[in-house]
């Protein structure tokens, strides 16, 4: 029996090799680039591959990026946010006022806008929507934060709605531009939360929900009588595309191959290692950093090691962010330069504080009494500088990135142990505090995400009580004047980095690939895909 093993294993290897080689020598035919007119053409059916099942396409409850891609076209919002400037601009509301203490917001609605069932979009509908989102509670995981302290909406007249909060809530203005606070028809709001997840839905946007089949696809079609449009769009009135189908294709390699072989028009969740191949095939890549908190190690300051500011500062400058991006990720990704990513409103470049300087890191650790032990890992008063990092596998390259960071930190004498956990275990560990550093990010186009992440009243990722930081976070939350708010946000960003509560590494990035026949797909302020101006050649 043992005699036959060898030829068999050789045979196995040969078959395996030949198959892999065949798979690598991919077709040499390149699709012709989008030749022809560059003027938008109405019509056509676009297919888009999502990485995960949206689970719920009700815009109020949509909890993942994939759900938001599908839901965005179903609803218009009161405002829109310019992705390049961060400015809030008119959409369903033509103008608005914010009270001095940022606790009351008055919106003046545009004339003539209607829901897909023909009912007018008026102040009563605005009130019904916000009331409904509050009632959803935790089922609207974003809305519950956007509307925290919601006292109610006053219907001043048919076109004027006044939203009142118990406390200052400056982030609410940006929140009105999100998909989560998009407007559904009153007819839909009367139905149960569960039934809204799968539709039918009466929306206010340029697309209608034809069907959502859980696990399979979301089918949208153009709303012919749509008259509105955000002030940021290239055209108003009905969308160009006749229909969009979002199909769930979980494997990133299958999404990529399906695009390259012409089986699908556009894909989301492009893996960093697939980008070069897609570009070489002539597909268009669309990438934008997600606004909010970059992918970072949040220090657990309640523990003796990460509680030492010297350790945290050393971590900040011992990480070589450029190497991480260059070797593990792709050119679409940016190294982190602040405690907010560069696409967030009021972001400030603080790369000076984060410059890679391992020699300085060693000096800081030496000065603080952390001296190298026999195995090179530093020790102080018998405590070994071996940090437990927890991570969840919610982004493919997470582990590779952290293994590289582990090597970088080892050079300055900081040991790192990686614990890869399921999302449930990760949360459990976060709650119990059994970790030194927690790996994660948070997406939000408004800088208030800093308060969400660091305020001791909210998530408090770093388990700190820092009155100075708290003061800055509260100040930005109650500043109605954008210039004043920007100042407070800038100071808070700096404070987080100076105290090194968090070691930002890179900016999470949404990467899409489109076939050459797809034009004018745009990315919104949260880096979500938008299809109102999109057309097919």
């Amino acid at each position, binding site marked *: 029996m043992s005699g*036959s093993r060898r*030829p*068999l294993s050789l*045979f*196995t290897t040969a078959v395996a090799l030949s*198959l*892999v080689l*065949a*798979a690598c020598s*991919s077709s040499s035919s390149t699709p012709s680039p989008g030749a022809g007119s560059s003027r938008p053409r109405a019509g056509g059916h676009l297919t888009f591959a999502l990485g995960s099942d949206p689970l*719920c396409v009700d815009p109020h409850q949509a*909890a*993942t990026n994939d759900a938001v891609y599908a839901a965005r076209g179903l609803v218009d919002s009161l405002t829109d946010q310019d992705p390049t400037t961060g400015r809030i601009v008119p959409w369903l509301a033509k103008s608005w006022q914010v009270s001095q203490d940022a606790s009351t917001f008055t919106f003046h609605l545009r004339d003539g806008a209607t829901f897909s069932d023909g009912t007018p979009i008026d102040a009563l509908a605005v009130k019904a929507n916000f009331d409904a989102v509050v009632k959803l*509670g*935790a*089922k609207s*995981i*974003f809305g*519950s*934060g956007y509307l*925290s302290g919601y006292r109610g909406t006053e219907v001043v007249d048919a076109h004027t709605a006044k939203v009142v909060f118990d406390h200052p809530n400056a982030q609410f203005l940006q929140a009105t531009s999100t998909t989560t606070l998009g407007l559904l028809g009153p007819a839909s709001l009367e139905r149960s939360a*569960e*039934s809204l*997840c*799968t539709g039918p839905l009466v929306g206010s946007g340029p697309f209608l929900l034809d069907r959502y*089949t*859980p*696990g*399979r696809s979301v089918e949208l079609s153009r709303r012919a009588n749509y008259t509105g449009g955000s002030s940021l769009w290239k055209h108003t009135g009905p969308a160009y595309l006749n229909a969009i189908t979002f*199909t*769930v*294709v*979980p*494997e990133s*390699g*299958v999404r990529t*191959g*399906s695009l*390259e*072989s012409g*089986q699908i028009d556009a894909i989301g969740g492009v893996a960093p290692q697939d980008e070069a191949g897609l570009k070489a095939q002539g597909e268009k890549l669309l990438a934008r950093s997600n606004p*909010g*908190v970059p992918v970072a190690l949040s220090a657990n300051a309640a523990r003796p090691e990460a509680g030492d500011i010297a350790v945290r500062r050393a971590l900040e400058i011992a990480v070589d962010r450029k190497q991480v991006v260059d070797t593990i990720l792709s050119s679409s990704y940016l190294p982190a330069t602040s405690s907010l990513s560069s696409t967030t409103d009021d972001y400030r470049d603080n790369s000076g504080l984060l410059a890679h300087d391992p020699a300085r890191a060693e000096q800081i650790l030496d000065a603080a009494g952390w001296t190298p032990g026999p195995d090179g890992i530093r020790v102080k008063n018998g405590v070994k500088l071996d940090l437990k990092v927890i991570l969840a596998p*919610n982004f493919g390259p997470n582990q590779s990135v952290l293994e590289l960071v582990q090597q970088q930190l080892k050079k300055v004498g900081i040991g790192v142990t990686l614990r890869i956990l399921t*999302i*449930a*275990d*990760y*949360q*459990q560990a976060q709650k119990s505090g059994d970790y030194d550093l927690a790996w*994660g*990010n*948070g*997406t*939000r186009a408004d800088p208030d*995400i800093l308060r*969400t*992440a660091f305020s001791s009243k*909210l998530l408090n*990722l770093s388990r700190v009580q820092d009155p100075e930081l708290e003061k800055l976070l509260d100040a930005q939350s109650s500043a109605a004047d954008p210039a004043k708010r920007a100042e407070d946000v800038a100071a808070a960003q700096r404070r987080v980095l100076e105290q090194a509560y968090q070691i930002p590494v890179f900016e999470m990035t949404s990467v899409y690939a489109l076939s050459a026949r797809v034009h004018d797909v745009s990315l919104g302020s949260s880096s979500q895909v938008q299809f109102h101006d999109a057309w097919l050649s």
Partner: protein
Amino acid sequence: MRHYLLRRLFQAVFVLWAAYTVSFGVLYLLPGDPATIMAAGGGDATTVTREQTDALRHQYGLDQPLAEQYATRLLHAVHGDLGRSVQSGVPVTHLLRQALPTTAQLAAGAMLLALVLGSAVALLGSSTRRRWLRQLLLSLPSLGVSAPTFWVGLVLVQLLSFHWRIFPAFGDEGFSALVLPAVTLALPAAALIAQVFAKSLRTALAEPYIQTALAKGASRRRVLFGHAVRNASIPPLTLVGIMAGNVLAGAVVVETVFARPGIGRETAAAVTAQDIPVVQGVVILGAVTFVLTSLAVDLVHPLLDPRIITTTRPAVAA
């Protein structure tokens, strides 16, 4: 016969209850609960407060004592109500009904292919007089058993979908979409059948009655198909009954690779989110499938070998 069927029915009910209870226990032993996972929203920072998460927990009855939750759910399940998915709010029976045809097609296609392919390899390998061909054919099953399904699926998709563009890479519409996933799922099953069938053929061909048949002047073909196959097919048939469950497990991988919205994908998603009602629905479905296929196999046995009498024979692997 009636006594036998009654006993089998009783056994089936016990298997279902045990599967339900064990899966319930396991799901509750896991850290966290579906409400917390939902509030986490895939890991992004959200501002869901503790009170709101508690409200959600209350809504799903997750705050009740464990025994009460178990009793309530079991009672509803007996009445055919498996509850609603925590994640999407869709009734579990509806989810399963929607996903089942996709998986049933896949499983049936794969089993059929596995039977044909596995038997062909075993028969050819056992009957050929060419040494090299016999060697090659009989070493194929080991290859098939050891190649990871995930990898096989990706290689097939690369070649036959992306490169030659013969079959679609994803979806479940039409026959062509069934080919690649069914082949992927069938290969390891075929390999197992071939291994077992080849071995039992070898045993059967060494029996004295084969010598007798040959001595009486029967052709090799007649001896193989008329005598050996019939006697050698009981072990692989028993295997088919057991494999029905394995095919469901294999569907988790295959349906993910080929983006088929079936039971396997539903299971993977539900387990990740600890969507208890859905996971339990799948467990019950799996148990029912298992009970039915092993019953079918038991009933076929006496047709192949009259010495086996169902009334006295204990159940197979129940």
